[in-house]
């Protein structure tokens, strides 16, 4: 019986708000302005369904999964490196397919305070900024955005509200988000390790639920546009 109590206690440890499907800290698909504490590392994977993720918005035929490593390199900077793999598409001379690499850097300009939100500037899939992808190169997920996040408490509920705007920047077209995006995360104090997510990623409304286990493991389940399943798993560790 004590093991059940211990397990229950471990499950209840930790706080909600983790990796989005993208690999950076966020809701389901959209980013937030929050970062993990300094020196936190996360590895994870997510499932991106064909119709709604930007890789497939260009007419691709495959679902995809992403694998990523994310680090809070400084207390004000998050860095994420990700490979995105099309499921079932083979790397060979006929398909001319190659898994997509992307590097993302997010800079938190202002920390959240009592009356002011956190403010963050993000450069997602920065290849375009370095002109490394070449003309028409693989900047499938690029986006430059500003986003703000503010958390509110109401009775036993905690609500995080985020809103942002994505725009073209230097040689980086904004692909993954176009214009305004935003969303909310809702959790109850009695069940801090579970969060409900609702968002608009500038093209579709998405909803999901996230669950934290052992203060390390995050599971994310949801529906893009309420009709395509999405999922993610990540493990975080603080050095």
């Amino acid at each position, binding site marked *: 019986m004590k093991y059940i109590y211990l397990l229950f206690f471990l499950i209840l440890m930790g706080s909600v708000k983790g990796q989005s499907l993208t690999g950076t800290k966020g809701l389901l698909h959209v980013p937030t302005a929050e970062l993990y504490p300094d*020196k936190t590392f996360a590895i994870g994977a997510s499932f991106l369904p064909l119709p709604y993720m930007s890789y497939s918005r260009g007419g691709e035929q495959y679902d995809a999964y992403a694998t990523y490593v994310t*680090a809070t*390199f*400084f207390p004000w900077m998050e860095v994420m*490196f990700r490979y995105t793999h099309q499921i079932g598409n083979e*790397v*060979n*001379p006929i*398909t*001319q*397919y*190659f*898994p997509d*690499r992307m*590097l993302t850097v997010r800079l938190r300009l202002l920390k959240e305070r009592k009356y002011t939100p956190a403010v963050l500037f993000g450069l997602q899939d920065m*290849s375009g900024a*370095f002109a*490394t992808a070449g003309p028409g190169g693989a900047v499938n997920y690029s986006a430059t955005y500003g986003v703000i996040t503010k958390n509110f408490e109401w009775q036993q509920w905690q609500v995080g509200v985020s809103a942002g705007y994505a725009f073209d920047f230097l040689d980086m077209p904004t692909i993954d988000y176009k214009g305004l995006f935003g969303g909310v995360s809702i959790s109850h104090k009695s069940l801090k390790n579970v969060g409900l997510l609702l968002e608009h990623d500038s093209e579709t409304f998405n909803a999901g639920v996230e669950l934290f286990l052992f203060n390390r493991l995050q599971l994310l389940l949801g529906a893009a546009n309420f009709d395509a399943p999405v999922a993610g798993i990540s493990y975080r560790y603080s*050095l």
Partner: protein
Amino acid sequence: MMKNILFIFTLLISFLVSSQENNLIKALHEDGFENLQSFTAAETLYLSYENNRYRFQGRGLAEVLKIASKEVSGLVKDLVVLIKYKDIPVTVVKTDLETLKKYVSGAVSYEAWAIQASFSLSTDKVYAKFEGQETVNSSFYKADIPVGVNLEYALGDFTDGVKIDLNLTPELRTVLGKGLTASFEYHTRVANDLTEYNYSSPNVLKASQDIRLSENKFLSFNFGYFSSQRFGLNVRYINYVLEERLAFHMNYGLTQFAYLNEDLELKYNTFERQIYSAGLTYRINKFDTDISAEYGKYLEFDIGYKVSVQRQFNEVFIGFFFTKTNSGENLGFNFQVPFFGNKYLKPNRVRVRPGDQFILDYNYSGSNDVGSTYNTGENFQNNLKEFYPQVLKKSLKKILAQ
């Protein structure tokens, strides 16, 4: 009568202090620390040691301070610890013994202890005091066999997405004298579709002499066979100006190409290649982060510069680099992580242990040949980062307190 009492009292104190020193040295020896020296002068106990037992130098220092706080009594007021590496003094730590004891037992906070303790790379004066002191448990003529893993990779083509060269890297390393090291590292190929040299072969066979000059300057000579089939001489120099915060460094190498093929035939050419570079590194102690810039000539005769940002998380290093030479650009990141085990077996005549670090450079864009160089094996100057005063000081916050 009074004189006699004073004489006996002094004799008694000397005996007790000497007994403490012996107990301390004995306890440290039993725990596997090497190159131990100690003496007492004016209520200060001076201790020097070398840690080849604990993987992280911060953990080694924590163990030494724990043992010292237990073995040394109130007859001593201050403790001065000189940390050595290959018997070369690197860092000196000074602390009030009573406050240390309180911190180790949990009676005072880390902040209360840290405010009176001092850590410094400037060891000249303290090191001079140890001259003539007996050394216990010398680190010389002991064979260490670290076994690591080396991975090189490159993005391939549409027939082979990622090309790798994966090797087990057993090494025979022994310190023959102060700063003098002999080393032989062999690459046992596990998988390779990256290079044409698809067989196991020696990777490094070298002798190195590391020297500490006065006022925080270090010089390292490496002579022998290095990676990338180069043999010759390589010299490194580093000068710390503001403790670890600012360092000026130079590197010079003169090598030729040679290797033993699969049939053990010697292949070589006589073209000499010189590489050289000089640069500055500024460390932001708050984040244990190095910002470096260097300019030089590299292995493919290309001339240009490298800039990098690297953060140290005790033993883990993660960094980003950008290289631009007249043969192209290279942008990427790198990381170094230790292998398993916080603590090795005690150093002995022969000891097998996990390798030092797993190191991987990831080239996000550009060519691997831009700004390339060879690897001379274990690098004394790179390893100094674990001995940096602020790294050691901060690590004790996590490791030392009960």
